[in-house]
């Protein structure tokens, strides 16, 4: 067990709707998400003294949000980063609180991820008319290879070659996450799909079809971290942080196509530390979240984090294994594929709600933890959910993980 295992908690979560387009500033959305997270925690703005965010030059800052909401901060920081940053900021918050730099910290992401700056150099309205290729872009934009789908497609293709599995394995993930979205009133895409629907959807970049790709949205989401002592005084049963790893990297992290095995991704370097810190084994995990910018990123991270052996993920996910009421439910809110793309915050938020037994589903009593577990009636609460492993992805080269424990079960 780690020295700080279970000493820190996530006590508040909140988000805006997933919008396309928001017609709002990232500051406006961030204020809403942070306010909702504080309300959820039962904290007054004056009880927060730290605020952090991540962005890629596309968003507002902690200072702007604090100013708007009248919060005086003892600590503020905005880091450069996308996927895998949420979990890293949680780890960062633990260190700050432990060292006395702050007592209660809000971490947020706010992005007009569809109507504003899209990932991979895409712009609203179609292809970039004239592209300036400087820096790293000299050696990818010049060969029409810029977007996350195009980049991750290389390791996905090599994975199919090396393991023999087909894109039907990708389909299993799209189907599972969509099924969970069908139980989530907040999700953008709620109509269940089949393996065949996936296989018939149009190509974006082979080996990825439309239904392999996440739903870019405009959204802000926030979580509140504080010590166990404070957490017990707040509104919900605390969700304890058991362990994790934060923005762990592979060798040769920047240009990962020269790594010996393209699909030997960063999670491989982290999970033993995280599980050791948490003092658990894989069989203790009741459900997971697994960053699904693409179906493949979920597939490869299950393998990279030791839920199955090398090359086995394609078989591991077969037969609906990742669906609720099956062996390892994944992305209970529908994830980036079906709920909406938040650069990872939403997965942590859903995990917290599940561990509180307060998944905001169609059950009339969800807010007080009363669930029917009747999927046909729209219940998406995992029964007896106690421990969750959240796995996050930056690129092949970078990953985070956050193992959480609830006490409501």
């Amino acid at each position: 067990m780690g020295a700080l295992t279970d000493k820190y908690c996530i006590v508040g979560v909140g988000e805006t709707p997933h919008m396309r387009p928001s017609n709002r500033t990232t500051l406006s959305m961030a204020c809403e998400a942070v306010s909702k997270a504080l309300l959820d925690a039962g904290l007054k703005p004056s009880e927060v003294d730290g605020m952090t965010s991540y962005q890629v030059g596309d968003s507002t800052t902690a200072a702007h949000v604090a100013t708007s909401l009248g919060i005086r901060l003892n600590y503020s920081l905005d880091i450069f980063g996308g996927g895998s940053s949420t979990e890293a900021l949680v780890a960062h918050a633990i260190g700050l609180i432990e060292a006395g730099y702050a007592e209660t910290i809000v971490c947020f992401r706010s992005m007009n991820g569809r109507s504003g700056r899209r990932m991979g150099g895409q712009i609203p309205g179609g292809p970039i008319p004239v592209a300036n290729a400087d820096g790293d872009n000299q050696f990818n934009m010049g060969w029409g290879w810029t977007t996350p789908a195009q980049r991750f497609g290389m390791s996905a293709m090599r994975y199919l070659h090396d393991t023999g599995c087909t894109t039907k394995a990708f389909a299993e993930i799209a189907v599972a996450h969509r099924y969970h979205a069908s139980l989530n009133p907040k999700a953008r895409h709620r109509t269940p799909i089949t393996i065949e629907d996936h296989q018939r959807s149009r190509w974006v970049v082979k080996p990825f079809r439309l239904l392999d790709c996440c739903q870019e949205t405009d959204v802000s989401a926030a979580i509140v971290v504080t010590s166990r002592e404070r957490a017990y005084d707040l509104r919900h049963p605390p969700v304890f942080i058991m362990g994790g790893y934060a923005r762990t990297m592979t060798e040769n992290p920047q240009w990962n196509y020269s790594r010996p095995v393209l699909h030997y991704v960063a999670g491989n370097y982290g999970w033993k530390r995280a599980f050791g810190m948490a003092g658990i084994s894989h069989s203790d995990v009741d459900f997971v979240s697994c960053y699904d910018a693409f179906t493949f990123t979920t597939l490869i991270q299950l393998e990279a984090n030791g839920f199955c052996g090398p090359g086995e993920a394609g078989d591991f996910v077969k037969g609906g294994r990742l669906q609720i009421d099956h062996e390892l439910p994944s992305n209970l809110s529908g994830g980036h594929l079906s709920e909406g793309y938040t650069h990872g915050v939403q997965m942590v938020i859903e995990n917290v709600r599940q561990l509180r037994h307060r998944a905001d589903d169609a059950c009339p009593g969800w807010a007080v933890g009363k669930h029917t577990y009747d999927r046909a009636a729209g219940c998406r609460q995992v029964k007896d959910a106690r421990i969750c492993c959240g796995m996050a992805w930056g690129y092949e080269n970078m990953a985070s993980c956050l193992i959480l424990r609830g006490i409501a079960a």
Partner: protein
Amino acid sequence: MAKEIDYSKLRILPDYDTREWWEGARQHKYLVRQCKQCGHRWFPPTFPACSKCTSMDLGWFETAGKGVIHSYVEVVQPVVGAFVGTVPYIVAIIELDDCKEADGTVTRVAGVLTNEESEAAIGLPCEVLFEPTADPKIVMPRWRICGSVAGAWNFDRHEAAGR
């Protein structure tokens, strides 16, 4: 030339670390960085230090411009305007034949194939060629398949036969 790219919609901006590489391409040389201390080679040249020995005393190695397709993607939906008329096109990661080091380190590069997408397969040999652009200072490398091998792996065939 098959699969034309509209280079007038692409502006390459070389920098202090890369301008010699682009000058090499202009002379139809495919260069990779080489460490003068330990001999390690790498691509792209945007990285200004040797990742094996940290030396910044660097030179260039002129490759024969031949390698093997290690992986590839077929871009169907274009994002950069220069490629709107090119789709579908294949971007391949190519493992260079003459950059294999004693400890197993390899150097891989990437580029657009001139071939039709149905021809692409992991394992096939290919070679570089160079295309002029609207900017006389910039010549762009492309790659073409230059042979066949038994057991080359094509995505569409794999999917059709797959389990």
